[in-house]
């Protein structure tokens, strides 16, 4: 993992309530780099996030909207956030329900920019 990737992901995963962050290839749903807490199945997160993002990209395109810049799946016990970055990569984070999602969102945008 390059230092740039590591630094970008660690800034996201350091936010209160964020279990971890990873870089995912949108094309095949594989983990490129990660900074995850123990117990988080990075491969599953990557595959599921990439699949959902692909579907939602097609949806927004059909709706005549610009390409998405943030995806947020909210569930009872937490959230998955994803922000597209350059080179068909996604910055993905898994967060608890009480996480500071506003800060996570901003750090993920910053991470995507640094990676690009």
């Amino acid at each position, binding site marked *: 993992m390059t230092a740039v990737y590591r630094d970008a992901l660690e800034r996201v995963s350091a936010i209160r309530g964020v279990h971890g962050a990873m870089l995912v290839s949108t094309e095949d749903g594989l983990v490129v780099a990660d900074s995850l807490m123990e117990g988080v199945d990075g491969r599953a997160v990557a595959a599921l996030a990439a699949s959902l993002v692909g579907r939602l990209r097609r949806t927004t395109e059909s*709706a005549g*909207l610009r390409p998405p810049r943030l995806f947020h799946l909210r569930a*009872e*016990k937490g959230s998955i956030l994803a922000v597209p970055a350059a080179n068909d990569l996604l910055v993905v984070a898994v967060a608890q329900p009480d996480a500071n999602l506003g800060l996570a969102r901003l750090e993920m945008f910053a991470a995507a920019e640094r990676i690009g």
Partner: protein
Amino acid sequence: MSDDVRTLTAALAADPGSLVFLELGEVLRRRGQGAAALKVALAGAARYPALADARDLCARIHSDLGDGESAFDAWMEALQLDPTHLGAHKGLGFLYYRSGDLRRARRHLEIAVTRSDEPGLHAAIARVREAAAAEPAVDGEAAGEAQPAAGGDSPSDAAGAPADSAADSLPFSMDAEPGADLPPEEALFAGFEGAREGLLLLDQHGLRLGGGLRDRDGVDVADAVAAHLAGVSRESGRAARLLELGAWQSLAVECGDGNLHLSAPSPETVLLTVRDASVPAGRLAILADRAGQAARRWLERLT
């Protein structure tokens, strides 16, 4: 320009800090000059941020202009300033009635009637109670479903004529059979802002059940979008379950020029709410929640 408008305009020009904007805005509203009325009302509300009457005036104008969401927000602001504001409770009672939320409609009307003994309010409460009693209880509540109003977006439209004064007369008629002349798929979100352009209910197979979706050029994109969303609820549910996050609740997408919100009013359906980027994600979630409640009641009525 009529004499009264001319006189009031001159009075406001002579003393921009006076409360005459309330009267001028109301006169313009009744004359159907919504844009001019709103300009006056918004300027007055900005000058008097703690004046509930100013928010109420803004709300009634928004409602006349068909902007139910802004009307709702303005009436809620009026209530924050004055929790017993008669016009705000009547206006919110109307909006909730129109969206089918009879429990909240009744609550607001019952508060309104403590401030005014006008017969129309008593009649309205009786109609809401009747409608609620006619529907099966949901989750232990006596929450029933009323068909959304078929008329325009304003309380005065629903009454068939402009209200004389929101503080003195009931701003909507409960005698009309709301939504009776609409086909079911249009009645689903009738009364909601963007009912035909930004609210879409679909089944798990990507087929449209109601509502509509149009792109920025006005092209109907509902079926194409619905097709892409076939199975999205199952996929979201699977993702959340596999990651031990419990049941999925919503899926939000931010684009540069618009925001999407997906939720599941029932296990077999998905509700898509789309708004332009000026509507923040948090507010979009609230709108989607209200539309989801309407969708659930609509589905219950169908089954």
